[in-house]
């Protein structure tokens, strides 16, 4: 990501009641001072053809400094996008990072844990942790890239929420969470083939197979 944008202090995600009421369409938003980030991003040519008004910007702040001091190279990226901060971290040290964030930085709740599949990237999956801190009233996103046959260590020991959420991520993406006490499918039946939320999983495959076996017809669609 280009770095010439003015860094912004980490700001907790909040509604913008003071945001301009008359909304500019997207193209104009780049010119209008709608959000400070948009203004900063304006002169910069972005990758997609239609210049998007917003793009992730590097994020600096106490938390980033602490994290970088403590984990160094394990923090691959610290950015902010539309007021939401996230770290891209090394998956091998995820449990350590989680413990640090929970105990020292008071991110005491894991709101959500999921994954996103980017088949074209070198490390295919991005496990996304959505943290929330009650004392700081602040959200933080952790993203840890994991390759298809790698495993990432579980966060169950840090937050018990992770138990079911990791099971769901396993169920949908086939990501292996090492050390999870009970890693098996949760939403889909035990005998299910494949991992449906992967981009290469076509929704009809399973259906067609089932229909062929059980109803003796070619396709259910």
């Amino acid at each position: 990501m280009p770095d010439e944008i003015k860094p912004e202090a980490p700001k907790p995600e909040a509604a913008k009641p003071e945001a301009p009421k008359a909304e500019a369409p997207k193209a104009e938003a780049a010119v209008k001072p709608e959000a400070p980030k948009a203004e900063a991003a304006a002169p910069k040519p972005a990758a997609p053809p239609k210049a998007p008004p917003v793009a992730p910007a590097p994020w600096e702040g106490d938390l980033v400094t602490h994290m970088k001091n403590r984990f160094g190279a394990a923090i691959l990226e610290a950015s902010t996008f539309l007021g939401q901060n996230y770290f891209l971290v090394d998956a091998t040290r995820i449990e350590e990072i989680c413990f640090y964030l929970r105990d020292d930085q008071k991110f005491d709740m894991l709101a959500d844990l999921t994954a996103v599949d980017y088949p074209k990237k070198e490390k295919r999956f991005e496990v996304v942790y959505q943290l929330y801190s009650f004392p700081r009233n602040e959200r933080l996103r952790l993203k840890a890239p994991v390759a298809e046959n790698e495993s990432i260590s579980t966060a169950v020991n840090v937050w018990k929420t992770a138990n079911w959420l990791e099971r769901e991520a396993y169920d949908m993406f086939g990501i292996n969470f090492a050390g999870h006490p009970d890693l098996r499918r949760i939403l889909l039946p035990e005998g299910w083939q494949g991992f449906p939320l992967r981009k290469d999983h076509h929704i009809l495959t399973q259906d067609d197979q089932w229909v062929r076996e059980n109803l003796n017809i070619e396709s259910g669609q």
Partner: protein
Amino acid sequence: MTEAETVYRPHPEDHTFLDSNEIVINMGPQHPSTHGVLRVVLRLDGEKIIGSECVIGYLHRGVEKIAENRTYVQFNPYVDRMDYAAAVSNSLGYCEAIEKIMSVVAPPRAQYVRVILTELNRIASHLLWLGTHALDIGALTPLFYCFREREEILKIFENYCGARLTTHSFRIGGLQYETYDGFEKQVNVFCDDFLHKVDEYETLLTGNRIWLQRTKGIGVISAEDCIQYGVTGPVLRGSGVKWDIRKAMPYCCYPDFEFDIPTGQNGDTFDRYIVRMEEMRQAVRIIKQAVAKIPDGPIMAKIPKVIKPPVGEIYHSIEAPKGELGYLVVSDNSTQPYRVRVRPPSFVNLSALDIMIRGHLVADVVAVIGTIDIVLGEVDR
């Protein structure tokens, strides 16, 4: 070994007095009080729960996969079908998430109407919860009173957008429908009547000694456990954490309204009941304020015909009746979302069921399932 016994995996904390007394029973997926198709495999010592295992997914429709195959606009009706008891809240969360990533803000009038409908929906959802919860504990009658009031809300929805349950009432950027003539009046009349009705429910339940015995000290969960398990919504507030996203990280036009966040102390079923009852009153309060100062103006922001949000990802969460409902939307600047992740409050809250029912009796399982207020459409998605 029965099938249920194979499903149940012993928990390290399981212990029994005498092995010979154990039975493993299946509660659900067809059971009158598992609120749909939840299946809980219970290990019982007599009637005491010594372990439980939730089996979910019977209602899995792959909403997240559907999202990747629909345009942003087309996916909107599907979110209504997750928590079908609170379809409007789901829709609000989704629309706001997309608006956020597009850096669009809905016009004030649209926001006010959104708040009114969402709070009405919160009441409707809580009414459904109250009726079924009371029914689970054996009070047959409040269910019908609750449904009567809920019907009034559904009539407002029907008049407003033409559908009662899965309303599809909001659109990305604002509203599709302008309010109808007499909308404010109908809402006000409902609000005035409703406060008396809540008192009536309280007469039937709150003071009743049987109700107190059945709910006090049942399904206790501490604030620390709540946070550990990611439990949000009334369950968290029942445990004494004063946290409501409407206040903590306000969205829509909630900062414009005055309301309180009710909390409990003990984190038992009774506290959660009281919290939800009070939340209904607070919702009425918000609605009245919103109706009183609903501004004029457009109801739709200027958004492009084809919605193509910029590359990036956004997490937006709202306070749904069940808890924190979050949407993680990943966009690749195409017309279809790259990934939509729904953070379902019911799913996360349900994962705390096990610690809440351990050591209680079978009858309490029913009470605790009721008090978590799950909607299986959302748990399984």
